């Protein structure tokens, strides 16, 4: 059942580092995080790795396995040939702190720039009524576990550090879309999504959707509809004219 797994783990810090070879015994049903924990417990006590729930629910243990952004706790060893060497490196789009741990503060800064939910007043009995079909759109986006794999893989920032200033990334387009589609939210977030969050820079290559461990259709269900809403407001001449002459106050009409 058990076998010796060959691993190459990146070790180092902001000043540089290298891939180091490890050999560790693993057994049936284990995931990559199990193997890393065993290396940590028996061979490298100071090996830095982030993790929490080990059940794919918290999004802490994001890293790149053989170059692909994945959760360490949801990647099963059985997906690899036993003779294959598994290489684990830190998320490339964020600065390294130590070993497999990166500085993901970019994401927390972008979260702070987002205007909060602002609901209309509740019904007379103090409760709120929404239909299941209406909340389901937002619920898909709220499955997001903030693993930031989509942020890591998005080439707008992965290969262009300078874009980070003007670009919030797929995780936050998801949040803009969620709030814009919320049945009770009163803010209009389209201008913000365009100007501050830079949704226009996204050219819908769908890399984010591919790596999402929650299977959220980031591109199709959030980014594209959000882009359409932005375009609707910003560039549709009829909408523009309506707004100018004051005939059309409800410009939240969907396409």
């Amino acid at each position, binding site marked *: 059942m058990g076998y010796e797994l060959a691993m190459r783990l990146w070790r180092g810090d902001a000043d540089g580092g290298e891939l180091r070879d490890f050999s560790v015994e693993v057994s049936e049903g284990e995931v990559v995080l199990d193997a890393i924990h065993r290396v940590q417990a028996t061979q490298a006590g100071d090996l830095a790795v982030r993790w929490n729930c080990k059940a794919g629910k918290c999004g802490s243990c994001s890293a790149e396995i053989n170059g692909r952004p994945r959760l360490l706790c949801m990647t099963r060893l059985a997906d690899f040939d036993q003779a294959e060497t598994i290489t684990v490196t830190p998320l490339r789009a964020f600065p390294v702190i130590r070993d497999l741990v990166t500085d*993901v503060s970019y994401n927390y800064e972008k979260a702070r720039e987002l205007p909060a939910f602002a609901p209309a007043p509740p019904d007379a009995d103090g409760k*709120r009524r929404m239909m299941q079909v209406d*909340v389901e759109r937002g619920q898909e986006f709220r499955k997001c576990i903030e693993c930031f794999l989509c942020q890591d893989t998005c080439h707008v920032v992965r290969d262009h550090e300078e874009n980070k200033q003007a670009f919030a990334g797929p995780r936050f387009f998801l949040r803009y879309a969620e709030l814009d589609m919320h049945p009770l939210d009163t803010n209009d977030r389209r201008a913000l999504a365009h100007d501050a969050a830079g949704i226009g820079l996204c050219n819908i290559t769908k890399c984010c959707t591919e790596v999402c461990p929650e299977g959220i259709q980031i591109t199709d269900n959030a980014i594209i509809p959000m882009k359409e809403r932005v375009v609707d407001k910003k560039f549709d001449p009829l909408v523009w004219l309506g707004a100018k002459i004051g005939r059309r106050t409800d410009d939240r009409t969907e396409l």
Partner: protein
Amino acid sequence: MADTSTDAETVQYDVVVVGAGGAGLRAAIAAHDAGARTAIVCKSLLGKAHTVMAEGGIAAAMGNLWPDDGWQVHFRDTMRGGKMLNHWRMAQLHAQEAPDRVLELEEWGALFDRLDNGLISQRDFGGHRYARLAHVGDRTGLEMIRTLQQRAVALGIDVFMECTVTDLLIDETAGERRIAGAFGYWRESGRFLVFEAPSVVLATGGIGKSYEVTSNSWEYTGDGHSLALRAGASLVNMEFVQFHPTGMVWPPSVKGILVTESVRGDGGVLRNCEGKRFMFDYIPEYFKAETADSEDEADRWYDDKANNRRPPELLPRDEVARAINSEIKAGRGSPHGGVFLDIASRRDAEFIKRRLPSMYHQFKELADVDITTEAMEIGPTCHYVMGGVEVEPDSGASLVPGLYAAGEVAGGMHGSNRLGGNSLSDLLVFGRRAGERSAEHAQKAEQGRPQVQQAAVQAAAEQALAPFAIEGGGENPYALQQELQASMQELVGIIRTDEELVLAREKLTELEDRATRLVVHGDRRYNPGWHLALDLANMLLVSECIAVAARARTESRGGHTREDFPGTDESWGDVNLIVTMGDDGHVVLRRQPLPQMPDDLRELFEGK
């Protein structure tokens, strides 16, 4: 060679909240709203706390589905679930305020599942008379933590992420011990940090990482329990540890991961290897009157609660966990040492995927099991500690002025056993209360703020650096933790005996001694070996509390089962066990009478 500088940066706040799960975030929001300069300190990144793993829902008697539900019914269910050992006042406040706290989450952007009339949906859970858990599929904890996190961010509350508090700082100069702040380190750099604050709210969660099979994450090392004890506060009900009936058992890598009670709430049943629905054989006298005694009645209950009684699969968790344990011991278990949890044969695939999406995902991805076509294998897993800091119910105040506790780290609310769904509501109700009252305390302390003693800071820093000073031949923290987990699992687990509890004390004493020689490699920057070495001290202290209290309570009740005292003993029915710290650094145990419930509440239990 690690940097041995004891230098520490200093920051000043009115209220420092330790922990960023549901209770910590809710406390911080309340303190901020009350005008306090507030900081949140957490060991992980924001939004990763253990609350994120809560699945089933938030218990609140909103009456959206069953108009007869109300706080009195919820209160009664909670007290009976805890075998009447709960602090009545906490259970009352909890039942009364939970509905408002849920509606408040909606105000801040939470998107709960809906009923056909547009109101928040409510689901069935063990021990609850009516369907009353507000939920989002089976990922309610994620919804709750994200909502609170986004609210806290919108309010601009300062968050110290990946920062561990190792000591509370006390000012004794005014003639009494009162909180002056907290001492901690940044995990990233290993540098020290002093929080000067007249109020500290502990919201650190539980202790599950001291057990081998647990649903808890690495953070659950009993930090708050230990900090409170060392600061002079008391702990109550530490003998009561909840083993959730349904954790995954296979493959070994996922052993202990939670399988939500919603599976049973939504119609799932437990079967042994003979295919028998065995829970009918384990209905205790205490719950006989309200539990179905035939499969037909149990199955009718889901749609008609007025004329049928609850299925035995939805007895409180302690009862179900013990029953599963007995079936496994009797040789009627599943191939990998659990029993079967079957929803596949009872609900259609579409229903299962819609109501239990993360369970479907979890079993598919981690165990190659399709829960819409096959039964799951499950077994008990350490899930929750009912015991915690003894607090004044209305405020969450501990015995130490300025020190508050809320959520799992606080004790009393759940008595000897917590009902499912009552944890998330507990976090919100008492998080808010502790936040408000800690802000009030800070306000009052404005004249004559407590002073941090430099000597205490120096001592805390030296203590934290001690593992680096051990040269060669010491103990490996990872190996020591594994030994502790194995010992607690075997000797202080779901079924206990006097003999084993004596052995547990001996083993803990040995481990405590060896823990003084922990050796860590590398330097102070993001060094998990060092972090574990520091957490271990808390795990050992809290484990001792559990073992001591468990040995003293010579009866079985809720989350404390003694093989040598199998029955519930009425003479223990009005006794709380209180743990404090003696001068020698070991725990001291005493009995304390249970607070008396007023007559108007007592009437709720008569003739039922």
